[in-house]
């Protein structure tokens, strides 16, 4: 049984459809990379998968007992305010809220998990820093650490490597791949970087305000749309 099954789903803002014809599924240990030009509806779809938006038509089903509290999420643009007074550690450990539930305070396990994920992403030294004073790349890693803290079964990442330098980007892909192999967590990543997408992902979903491709990454490389896109490399 798959974790997420999308059947004929379409999403709209105020009745204006922005993405439609969505038919795909994500299973355990899958690594789905969502590609497509700017404005093709990738972020919108992710909001739908997260339950922040209802499909205009069609359905999104969750299987295997997947609950929202088992999902980790790295937003493309954080909805948090820029000048919010908070420390790095406070942001990271807030990712553990979903597993802690209504029990008061965080347990030592929560603190351990927060520290572990910060260590993994090399931001342990920033622990006590003020979030708003970090560089863009550092902030991105803090938000990723928060996402990892929240992840039990599925990790959704919206353009996670934008704003990261090449070295950190490579490390980042490595971390995600290791996470998937070691824990079996399914990854759904929106990426501008098609080449790395095809290299690491098991399947590709290509959007162009509708679904133009869904299938294994190997097949995508051979497909017309995939060949065209990979040749173009950068796309806008």
């Amino acid at each position, binding site marked *: 049984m798959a974790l997420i099954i999308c059947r004929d789903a379409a999403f709209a803002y105020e009745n204006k459809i922005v993405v439609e014809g969505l038919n795909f599924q994500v299973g355990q240990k899958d690594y789905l990379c969502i590609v497509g030009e700017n404005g093709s509806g990738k972020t919108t779809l992710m909001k739908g998968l997260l*339950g922040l938006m209802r499909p205009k038509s069609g359905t999104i089903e969750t299987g295997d007992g997947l609950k*929202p*509290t088992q*999902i980790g999420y790295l937003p493309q643009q954080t*909805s948090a305010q820029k000048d919010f*007074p908070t420390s790095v550690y*406070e942001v990271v450990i*807030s990712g553990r809220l979903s597993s802690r539930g209504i029990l008061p305070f965080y347990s030592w396990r929560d603190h351990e998990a927060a520290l572990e994920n910060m260590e993994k992403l090399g931001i342990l030294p920033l622990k006590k820093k003020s979030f708003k004073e970090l560089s863009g790349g550092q902030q991105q890693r803090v938000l990723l650490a928060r996402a990892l803290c929240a992840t039990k079964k599925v990790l959704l990442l919206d353009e996670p490597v934008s704003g990261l330098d090449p070295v950190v980007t490579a490390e980042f892909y490595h971390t995600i791949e290791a996470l998937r192999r070691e824990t079996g967590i399914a990854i759904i990543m929106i990426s501008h970087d098609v080449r790395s997408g095809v290299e690491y992902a098991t399947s590709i979903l290509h959007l162009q305000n509708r679904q133009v491709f869904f299938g294994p990454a190997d097949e995508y490389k051979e497909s017309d749309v995939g060949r065209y896109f990979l040749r173009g490399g950068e796309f806008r």
Partner: protein
Amino acid sequence: MQIFETIGEMLSFTFMIRAIVVGLLVSLCAALLGVSLVLKRYAMIGTGLSNVGFAAMVIAGVIDVAPLALSIPVVVVTAFLLLRMNESSKIKGDSAVALISTSGLAVGVIVMGVTTGITLSICNILFGSIFAMTAADMYLSIALSAVVIIIFVLFYKQLYAVTYDESFARATGTKVEVYKSMLALLTAVTVVLGMRMMGALLIASLTLFPALSAMRICKRFLSVVIASAVIGVVCFFVGMVFSFALDLPPGATVVGVNLVVFTIFSVVTFVRQRGLR
């Protein structure tokens, strides 16, 4: 020491002790909740609620029921209404608050106008009075403030998550609406409890000033919350001492002290940032 004599004298009056006990607790609640209210741009909700509370107090006076018994449910319902309106896109949040707040004021004034020979002092309701507390009021206020503080502490991490990043919280399965309603409910109770002493027009400032002052000097959320609580409580006490010693109206004096602290913190932060560059 002159100051200790003044404080000693102040505490020799029963009504003063009641006012100070309730005021300190309400200031603490208001300062704690204020951090989330300010950061979530809900700051105006306090104002809206207190004006509706004003109407409820007037009506309670006219139909002769206990003021708290009527105003707490009325203000709590208003708080939920405000949140709903905030969510719906038809009426924008700030207009919703302005609508409700001016309507509350209007209803209160109309009721006062049509009933002749009532003994209410409009000035006391608008600007507060320290003679307002009966012993029963005090015990009820202590109990309710304790509940507010306990809920705040128990659900601190949820309030943080919802304040910091609502859509992340929602996406990862936190019942955001529940905690937003909780925030509105706690604010409503705090506003009503503090209203009679601080005045309907001044109570909202207790949720704003301490949080804003704390944000000048602190960078961690928890430090902001703690600093806000300390500032709120200290400013209230200092304000009461001044009010007693110089025979000034208590609500306005407490707000005045808060304003002075906020100004000092702002100037200090400004100078420090300038100095670093």
